[in-house]
């Protein structure tokens, strides 16, 4: 059987990393191809802004290339670049916050037990009645109403599937702080989506 293009795609990640470390730009580009979508999405989730997300994307891979020799391969390449991207994103946020251009929702930054605001059940499979772009705009508006660290915790844990421990290390938070933020982020998003998806609403 002839070898198809999958052979290149299926190339083992550690092989690509070794080749990239040896200066093979094509191997590095292949690593970029694998993770660019995720890193862009992460940038948008952390910063909430497409221009910043694009800068995060470029700076992450430029830095990864410059510092590839420091990557010790005791973690996944993906976790290593996520760390770079999260730091870049948080740096951008800090800069913006001094301009006071990032609004922080008041209803979620207070500690203690929270009570859901919406108790109505959803209509069945609301996502199937919406165009993809409509659904995306609903999900992204809800996510944007969360403070950045809550949004980032939710994204890393629930969407990217990192462990609580990995998320804690990436964000310099304790495990219990990650759990508390995840809990509040989930309930807040649920409240926001319930406003749109509850029975009787169209």
């Amino acid at each position, binding site marked *: 059987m002839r070898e198809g293009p999958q052979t290149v795609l299926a190339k083992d990640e550690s092989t690509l990393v070794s080749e990239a470390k040896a*200066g093979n730009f094509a191997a590095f580009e292949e690593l*970029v191809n694998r993770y660019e979508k995720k890193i862009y999405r992460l940038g948008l989730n952390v910063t909430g802004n497409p221009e910043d*997300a694009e800068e995060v994307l470029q700076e992450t891979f*430029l830095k990864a290339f410059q510092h590839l020799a420091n990557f010790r391969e005791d973690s996944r390449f993906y976790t290593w670049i996520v760390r770079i991207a999260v730091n870049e994103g948080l740096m951008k946020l800090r800069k913006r916050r001094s301009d006071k251009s990032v609004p922080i929702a008041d209803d979620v930054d207070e500690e203690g037990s929270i*009570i859901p605001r919406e108790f109505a059940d959803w209509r069945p499979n609301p996502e199937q009645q919406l165009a993809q772009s409509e659904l995306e705009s609903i999900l992204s508006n809800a996510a944007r109403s969360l403070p950045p660290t809550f949004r980032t915790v939710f994204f890393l844990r629930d969407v990217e599937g990192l462990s609580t421990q990995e998320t804690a290390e990436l964000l310099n938070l304790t495990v219990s702080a990650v759990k508390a933020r995840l*809990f509040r982020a989930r309930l807040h998003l649920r409240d926001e989506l319930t406003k749109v*998806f509850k029975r009787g609403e169209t």
Partner: protein
Amino acid sequence: LITCKDVINEISNYLDGELDEDLKRHLSEHLKKCDDCQVIFDTTRKTIELYCNGELYPLPDPVRDRLHQALRRNCQRTT
């Protein structure tokens, strides 16, 4: 006996399977009897599913092109 407030407080850990057996049993018994809590539980799980399934924030082609141009400009020179 656990209250609705206890259930809500533990709902995230319950979803992640991080509760001990006893608490897990109490919680699932409560959910069977309490419609409000069951709705909160179901819709929280559905919320997570929607974010996981949706291809939120796709990478636009021009953004991808600019990334690869920047990489070629800055990285290829040094290799």
